[in-house]
C-alpha cells in the first residue's frame, strides 16, 4: 500500500542511500541517436573511485548528451550504466541521485528567486507534519552550513541566488550535490564562467573532494585545466571515444586527438601597425535590461589596423558596451564616434552602413535566422540595397552567386547555399555570420564571443579571418570571456570589471596579472605591464592618440 501511494505521489521524497562504499562507474556501449544523428556511438568509459576523469571534446562532440544519460535526463538507446558492478537504469535524475551520482550543469540549475537553502533543499526537503509536508527550514539551513563546513565551500544559506556572483552560485551547486550524499560528481564545463583565480579555487576543491574518496567527471574543452587536474583523460570526437590519454600528454597532442588533425593553438600574426583612431568611446554610460548601470564611464579607442581585445568575466558590462556602440541599446551618457562622426542615437542600420561589421555574441538569437537559408542569411543586412535588391524585390540570382562565392571563400561546410542555417554546425553558422559582416567595406569590425560554441578547426579559421581583416587596416574590437582567445588575438587588452575598464595592458602581461584584474583586483600600475608607449608604430600615429593611449595604459 505504502509503495503504491508513493508511486502515485508526485511529491515523494528522494530516497537516500546509506552506503559508504566508494563508487565505481562503468559506461558500456552507450549509444544515443537523435533522428539520423548518432550523438553517442558505443561509448565505453570507466571511472575509478577517487579519480578526476576528464571528458575532453569539442562543442557538439557528445559529452553533454552522454552525461545527461548518466544523470537520467536522457535514456540511452543502447548500452548499460553499471554502478559498482550492478547494471542500473536511470529513468530520471532521482534514480541517478539515489545511486550516488550528482551533476553540476553548465547552466546552473538554481531558482534565482529562492534562497541558497531553498535551492539546496529542493527535491530532498526535510518536512514535518506528515502528509502536510511542512518545510523544516531550520534543519535545511543547518544542513547547508554543515555540508559547507565539511567540504570547505563557504555559502550563505539565506542569500538569494540572483544576488550571488557566478562563482558563489557554482559553490551552491556543488553543495547541493554533496548534501545529496553523492559519490560521483559530474561537472559540466564548470570553468566557463569563472575567472582564472576562481578556476584555481575550483580545481583545489575538486582535489580535496577526490581525497575524500569521491570521483569526479570533469567535462571540458580547455586543455590547460585538464592537464592540471585530471588523473585520466578520455577524448570524444563526433560521438565516439577516440582515445584515452594521461595528463602528461602535451596540449598539442590532446588538441590533435580532439579535432582529428594537427591544429595550431597559436594565432599567426605580425605585429600590429595601428593608424588613426577609428572608434572613440568617451565616458560611456549604459544600463542593462533591468535598468541597472552596466557600463559605468568607459573610455576606449580602437585604432585602424589593431585588434583591441576586451577581457573580463561574462556579465561585467561587455555585452552592453558593444550593444550601445551598435545602437542596440540606449546610450545614457557619453559619446561614441566613428571617424569623428557621432554614432550615439543612430539606428543600427545606419551604423552598419557607415562601415561597421558586427558579430553578436548570441549567434542563434541575433546572428542568424535559423530557418533561413545560407544564401539568405548572407544578405540579411543588404537585402534592400544594390546589388541584392531594392525596396520592392530581391535579385535572387545575385543572391545565389554571392552565396556561392562566400561559401567558397569562408569555407562554409553546407550541402548547398539553400540549406537552412539552423542545420549547420555552430562553427559553420558562425562562418556565415562572419562572411556576411566582412563582405562590406569596413572601418570597424566588432566580434563578441567570436568562437563560442565553435569547433577548434573553425576557431583557427575565424581567428585567421579576424587577423586578416586587421591587416587590411580595419579597426577590430574583440570581446571574449575566454582569456586565451583575447591574449592570442589582441594587440592591446582592455580588462573590464563591473562596467569599467580597469586597465589596458599588453598581451605579454602575465596571465595571473590579467586574471587578478578580471577579478577586480588592481595593484600598483607598475605591476601590470602597460602598453609600450614607445613602440615605433605609435610614432607614426597622430600625437594626440599616442598621448591618449599612454594615459589609458597607466590608469
Amino acid at each position, binding site marked *: 500500500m505504502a509503495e503504491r501511494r508513493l508511486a502515485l505521489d*508526485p*511529491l515523494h521524497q*528522494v530516497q537516500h542511500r546509506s552506503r559508504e562504499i566508494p563508487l565505481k562507474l562503468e559506461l558500456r556501449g552507450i549509444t544515443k541517436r537523435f533522428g539520423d544523428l548518432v550523438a553517442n556511438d558505443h561509448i565505453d568509459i570507466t571511472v575509478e573511485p577517487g579519480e578526476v576523469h576528464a571528458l575532453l571534446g569539442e562543442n557538439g562532440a557528445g559529452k553533454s548528451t552522454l552525461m*545527461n544519460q548518466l*544523470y537520467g*535526463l*536522457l535514456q540511452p538507446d543502447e548500452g548499460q550504466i553499471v554502478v559498482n558492478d550492478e547494471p542500473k537504469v536511470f529513468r*530520471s*535524475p*532521482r534514480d541517478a*541521485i539515489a545511486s550516488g551520482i550528482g*551533476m553540476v*550543469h553548465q547552466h*546552473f*540549475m*538554481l*531558482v*534565482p*528567486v*529562492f534562497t541558497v537553502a*531553498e*535551492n539546496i*533543499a*529542493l*527535491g*530532498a*526537503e526535510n*518536512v514535518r507534519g506528515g502528509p*502536510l*509536508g*511542512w*518545510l523544516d527550514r531550520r534543519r535545511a539551513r543547518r544542513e547547508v552550513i554543515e555540508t559547507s563546513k565539511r567540504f570547505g565551500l563557504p555559502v550563505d544559506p539565506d542569500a538569494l541566488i540572483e544576488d550571488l556572483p557566478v562563482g558563489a552560485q557554482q559553490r551552491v551547486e556543488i553543495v*547541493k550535490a554533496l548534501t545529496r550524499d553523492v559519490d560521483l560528481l559530474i561537472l559540466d564545463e564548470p570553468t566557463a564562467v569563472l575567472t582564472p583565480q576562481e578556476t584555481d579555487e575550483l580545481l583545489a576543491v575538486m582535489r580535496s573532494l577526490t581525497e575524500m574518496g569521491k570521483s569526479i567527471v570533469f567535462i571540458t574543452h580547455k586543455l590547460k585545466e585538464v592537464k592540471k587536474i585530471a588523473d585520466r583523460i578520455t577524448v570524444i570526437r563526433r560521438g565516439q571515444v577516440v582515445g584515452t590519454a594521461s595528463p602528461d600528454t602535451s596540449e598539442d597532442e590532446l588538441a590533435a586527438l580532439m579535432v582529428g588533425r594537427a591544429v595550431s593553438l597559436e594565432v599567426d600574426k605580425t605585429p600590429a601597425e595601428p593608424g588613426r583612431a577609428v572608434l572613440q568611446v568617451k565616458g560611456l*554610460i549604459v544600463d542593462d535590461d533591468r535598468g*541597472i*548601470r552596466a557600463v*559605468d564611464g568607459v573610455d576606449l579607442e580602437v585604432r585602424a589596423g589593431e585588434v583591441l581585445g576586451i577581457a573580463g568575466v561574462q556579465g561585467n558590462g561587455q555585452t552592453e558596451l558593444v550593444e550601445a556602440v551598435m545602437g542596440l541599446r540606449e546610450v545614457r551618457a557619453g559619446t561614441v564616434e566613428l571617424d569623428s562622426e557621432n554614432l550615439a542615437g543612430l539606428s543600427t542600420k545606419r551604423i552598419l552602413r557607415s562601415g561597421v561589421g558586427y558579430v553578436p555574441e548570441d549567434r542563434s538569437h541575433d546572428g542568424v535566422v535559423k530557418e533561413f537559408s545560407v544564401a539568405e542569411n548572407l544578405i540579411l543586412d543588404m537585402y534592400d540595397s544594390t546589388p541584392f535588391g531594392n525596396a520592392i524585390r530581391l535579385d535572387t540570382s545575385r543572391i545565389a552567386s554571392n552565396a556561392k562565392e562566400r561559401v567558397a571563400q569562408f569555407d562554409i561546410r553546407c550541402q548547398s547555399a539553400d540549406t537552412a542555417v539552423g542545420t549547420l554546425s555552430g562553427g559553420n553558422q558562425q562562418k556565415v555570420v562572419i562572411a556576411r559582416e566582412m563582405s562590406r567595406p569596413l572601418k570597424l569590425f566588432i566580434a563578441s564571443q567570436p568562437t563560442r560554441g565553435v569547433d577548434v578547426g573553425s576557431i583557427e579559421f575565424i581567428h585567421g579571418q579576424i587577423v586578416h581583416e586587421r591587416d587590411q587596416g580595419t579597426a577590430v574590437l574583440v570581446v571574449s570571456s575566454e582569456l586565451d582567445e583575447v591574449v592570442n588575438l589582441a594587440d592591446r587588452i582592455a580588462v573590464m*570589471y*563591473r*562596467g*569599467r575598464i*580597469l586597465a589596458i595592458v599588453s598581451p605579454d602581461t602575465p596571465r595571473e596579472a590579467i586574471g587578478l584584474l578580471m*577579478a*577586480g*583586483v*588592481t*595593484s*600598483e600600475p607598475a*605591476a601590470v605591464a602597460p602598453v609600450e608607449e614607445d613602440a615605433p608604430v605609435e610614432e607614426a600615429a597622430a600625437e594626440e592618440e599616442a598621448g591618449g593611449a599612454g594615459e589609458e595604459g597607466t590608469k
Partner: protein
Amino acid sequence: MSTTTVQELTAVTAPEPFWTRQRRLGVALTLLGVLAAAVFGALAPGETARFTLSDNAEGAAISINGQLGAVLFGLLTLAAGGVLLAGLAKRWSTLLLGLGVLTFVLSFLCWQVAGQFMPLVDILSGTVQLALPLILGALAGVLGERSGVVNVAIEGQFLMGAFAGALVGTMAGSVWAGLISAAVGGVIIAAILAVLSIRYLVDQTVVGIVLNLFALGITGFLYERLMQPDAEHYNAPPQMPTWKVPGLSDIPVLGPVLFNATGLLWLALALVLIIHFGLNRTRWGLRTRAVGEHPTAADTVGIRVRGLRYLNVLLGGIVAGLGGAYFTLVATGSFTKNMTAGAGFIALAALIFGRYSPFGAFAAALFFGFAQKLAFYLSAINSPVPSQFLSMLPYLATIVAVAGLVGRVRAPAADGIPYVKG
C-alpha cells in the same frame, strides 16, 4: 609599495534618478487630492452625509457635513501625496499610498452621500459577496500560474461550475451535491487546459480563450435545450444555507458581514490562508514555485514537473468551479446564459493586480468587489456619476498594475512556457 584593492560594488552605484517610484506616486496622489478637495468639495452639497452602521437608514450613524468631509479628506490625500513627493518617510510609502487612496475614496463618498445615507453593513456585505467568486477565481489562477501554467479560462471554469452546480443541485435536490458538481465542472475545463497546454504544448492563452468560448457555448446550448423548457426539474437548485455564528455575529458592522454568511465565504477565506501557507511553507509549495520559476532546475533534482503542473491546474479547477457555484447556489438561485458576465476576467485581473500571491489576490478581489458594490449603490441613489466609471475600475487598476506604477508585477519566470525535457 604595492597596494591591492578589490573594486567594490558600491563604486558602480549610479546616482538615484529624481523621479523615483515614490515621487511618481506622490504626483498621482497630489493630483487626486486636488481633484478631491477642489472638485468634490465644490460639487458636494453642504448637507449631512450619514453612514449608518446597519443595512438600512435606521440606527446609529457616523454623520459629517458632506462638503466639509469632501474637502477635508481631499486635503488628507493631498498631504499623503505631498509627503511622498517630498521624498520623506520612504519606509512608509506603501502605508501612505493606502492612506491616500482611502482618503480619496472617503472624500468621494462624502460628496455622494451628502443629503443621503449609506448603510455600511449593506455596502460591506455586498462587497464581500461580490468579491467571493473573484477570490476563488483568483486563487485558482494563483495555483496554476505559480506552477507555470497561464489560466485565462477562469471565466469558463466559473460558467461550467455555475451550470453543473445548478443542474446537479436541482436534480439531486441537494445543495452539497451541487457544490461538488460545480467543482467537477471546473475540473473538466481545467483538465482540458492541462492536457492541451502541458501534454500537447498548445499556446496557453489561446487554449484559455477557446475554453471560455467552449464553456459559454455548451452551457448556453444546454440551458436553452434543457433548463429553459423545464426549469423546475433542471434549474431550481436549493440555495446554500446562511449560517449565523452565535455571539460573533453580534459584533457591530463586521459581525453580520462575516458571521452571518454561507459556508462558501468561510471556505474562500480558509483557502486564502491555506494556499498562502501552502505555497510558502510546505514541500508542495516550494516545488510548485520551483516548477513555475525554473522547471529544468526542478527536473534535475527529481521533481516531476509535468505531474506537479497537472496537479496544480486541476486543484485550481476545483477552486474555480466552487467560485462558479457562487453564482447559482448563493447569488441568484438559477442558471442563466453567460451569467458570469466577465467575472472570470476580473478574477484574472485580481490575480495580476495582487501580484500572483494569495493575499494580494484576496485584497485585489475585495477592492474590485467594493467598486462593483459602489456602482450599484450610486445608481440606487441616482448619483450624477455614471456607475460605468466604477465598473471599469478593475480593468483600469490592472492596466496600472501591469504598467508597473504600483511596483513591478513579476510573473513566475516560466509562466506560460511549456516544459519540454532535454
